[in-house]
């Protein structure tokens, strides 16, 4: 059965382009231009994934509001912010509201498709029984590439997709320096240097929340980052 994607975007041209692209990939697409009609439709049926713009015409923070209401209804509905707002503050706010990813409109359609596919894959994997073949273990770190989850000392680390891929890219070859371009490619996103830096900071913080002595990610100034494994 085809997955159903809802897209809430006030800019008609973008909405139509994304709709066309999603349909081409075989998804069923519901397109909305504002929060109210979207909520009305979700009343009767929740889609499998929602792509939301933050700025919905006059409803400046409408995307955030929508995200909060959707998250209230379903804890595991994948939500992706796709917005022109690239400020750190907005990204943090969006992710705090429970979004699975925060993407700026710089992202190319193939990248967007890849991410959506990955999110669905994770969703599917969650429902399947555990299989060890997709696991990568690096000391205290366990990466489940199928479910796209990461555990540190057996505690799940709540990472977004982008963060997951960054950790994955570093931890696959411990001790190797991954430069920013490599990390960007791994995350399938166009990120500038500062965004990478903030992502790494956020990842470190999430690990530190579990383990106060966490220091497995090393900054190699001027070059990139590497995973240290004992």
């Amino acid at each position, binding site marked *: 059965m085809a997955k159903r994607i809802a897209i809430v975007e006030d*800019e008609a041209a973008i909405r139509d382009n994304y709709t066309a692209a999603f349909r081409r990939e075989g998804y069923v697409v519901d397109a909305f231009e504002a929060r109210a009609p979207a909520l009305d439709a979700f009343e009767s049926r929740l889609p499998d994934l929602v792509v939301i713009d933050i700025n919905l015409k006059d409803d400046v923070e409408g995307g955030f509001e929508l995200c909060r209401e959707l998250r209230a209804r379903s804890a595991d509905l994948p939500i992706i912010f796709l917005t022109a707002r690239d400020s*750190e503050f907005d990204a943090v706010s969006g992710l705090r509201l429970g979004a699975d990813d925060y993407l700026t*409109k710089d992202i190319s359609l193939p990248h967007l498709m890849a991410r959506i596919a990955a999110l669905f894959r994770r969703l599917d994997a969650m429902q399947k029984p555990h299989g060890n073949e997709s696991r990568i273990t690096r000391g205290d770190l366990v990466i489940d590439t199928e479910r796209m989850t990461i555990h540190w000392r057996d505690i799940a680390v709540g990472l977004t997709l982008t963060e997951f891929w960054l950790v994955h890219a570093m931890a696959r070859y411990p001790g190797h320096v991954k430069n920013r371009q490599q990390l960007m490619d791994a995350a399938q996103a166009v990120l500038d240097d500062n965004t990478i830096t903030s992502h790494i900071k956020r990842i470190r913080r999430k690990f530190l929340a579990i383990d106060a002595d966490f220091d497995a990610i090393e900054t190699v100034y*001027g070059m990139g980052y590497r995973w240290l494994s004992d």
Partner: protein
Amino acid sequence: MNLKRQLLLVSLLTLMLPWAGCEFIRETESALRSGQQQMLAGTARALASSMTQYQEEFPASDGTLEAGDQLYIHPLASRPSIDGYFDDWPLERESLRAMRGADGPVHVALGALGPAVYLYVEVVDRDVVYAQSQSIVLDKGSQHADRVNLINSSPPYLDEVIAFAAEAPGRILSYKQTAYGFAPEPTITAYWQDVPGGYQLEARIPSALLGTHLGVVVSNTDDAATPGTRSSSFEGRSPGPAARRLPELDAVATSLVQPGMRLLLTDAAGWRVAVAGEIDSESMRASGSGFVRRIYDLLVEPGKEAAFAEPDPQGREQQTYVSSALSGRETATWFRSDESGKAVVAVAAPVQTDGATLGAVVLQQGTDAILSLTNEGLARLINLTLITTIVVAAVLLGYATWLSRRIRRLSIAAEAALENESLQSALPSALAEDEIGDLSRSFSSVLKQLGDYNDYLRSLASKLSHELRTPLAIVTSSLENLEHEPLNEAGVGYTNRAREGADRLRRILAAMSEASRVEELMANVEPEGFDLKAVLDSTITAYRDVYKDRSFSFDCRLDKAATLGSPELLIQMLDKLVDNAVDFSDDGDTIRLGLTATDDGYALTVENPGPPLPEKMRTQMFDSMVSMRSGKNTQHLGLGLYVARLIASGHGGSIEAHNTDGGVVFEVTLPPTETV
């Protein structure tokens, strides 16, 4: 010249007050005085015309006589004793008539009291030669002696001589020339007094022995064998008529004079023939210190010294106003005395009959009242205006100080606000309702506009990139959809080109939003301690990989450079500087980095060979959207160095650029660790 001095100068204008007051007082005084002079002149004229009826009483004058040939017989108030000394004469020494003598000046005085005439002669003589008993009158052969001759005559009769010569100092006999030669004259009392350097002779002669014309001849010899050198009181062969006070005219003058006035009558030569009345000498001395009086003297028209108003001690009135009256012109003048505060108004009028001048009437009157009035008024005026001036100057000075302090505070605050590029709080005097308040408010609005403009410039790039991102997304997503449509070869080519263009546009937008992202990061950065040197070492290694056609050198003598801040951001700053250095240098050039410890922290330098910076850009180049590049690299919006400055100042440091020999050096100063 600052405001304070200017106002102080302006306050000097209040000195006009005393000046105007003085002008007024001077006017008043001179008006009063000229009124008094006119009144006095009228009286003097009347007196002069009434004097003509006493024509006969005035000494006759033939007009050929020289005044110098005449002697004046002073009226004596008391009888001097005949002892050869002048000090018991009721006259001043100024009254002595001086003549030139052989060994020094000869002084002569004549006085009249009752029926006698007194003679005093004072001779400077190196060597007094006394007469022999036989030669006491005969002055010939080897019989010469020092002697004094009193020549008298009543023309047309011949001259007669009374000779005084001494055999010894003391009381001497005098000899009178008669038709039969010299004979002792017992009615004359004479005394010869030797004094150091000469001798003094005093004699009393009955008036009956003397004629109308008198002269004194002194003969001075050095030894008995030589004739003496003669010095005489007259020039010609015979002496002139003796001038004296005339009792008849004195009586007339006394009867005519009014109280508080002095009346002098002179003959045609100016000899005083009558005196009557006294100037009221009871002076109302003006109050006021010497200082005030000095100012007064400066301000008020000066008169002649009051002493000159007194009758001449030698008996002959020689003041200009008297001489001009004697030449026929009525003249007024005035005298004043500093000591007594006394002023004297004087008028001299000629006494004329048939065109001939008989003499002059001199009328003098004190003007104590006027002078005291003005003097006291002046003193009060000066005091008051002086106080006013000081008060006004002090008030103006205080006012100016207050004004200039307000203006200075305003200017300091405005400058500070300008440096911070923002208006933190209201400028001083913003609520004042005067012009300074207006100025302050205008400053505020100018600064606010400037701040708004700067904010606008700063946010322009990020706003622009933000606004352009959505249309760009439309373009790219459309192009990406287009790729899935069937296209011919040319269509694919165009699509690819369009995508390349859109990609470039995206990179530009990313660069434009970088500054605002850096600012955002800076606000949230959690400073960490790190070793700047180690970070630089590793970064420079990375640069060597990235820029393979440049060489990099790193000069650092420090073992460790402990720094607090964000290493990522500092590297980003360095990236911008190195990127800049690479763009302005050529392949194979060496880019030199350096890190040194300074007094205020660390100095990080990036130096590249290349063209010098234009001088006018030196300060602007770190501003937003200012680029010095000339088309070499099209993707530069002039944000790189702005980001570098943002990061440097976010770390509490600063960034500067200088030209060096054949290159450019950028220097970032970072504060020492403990102040970050």
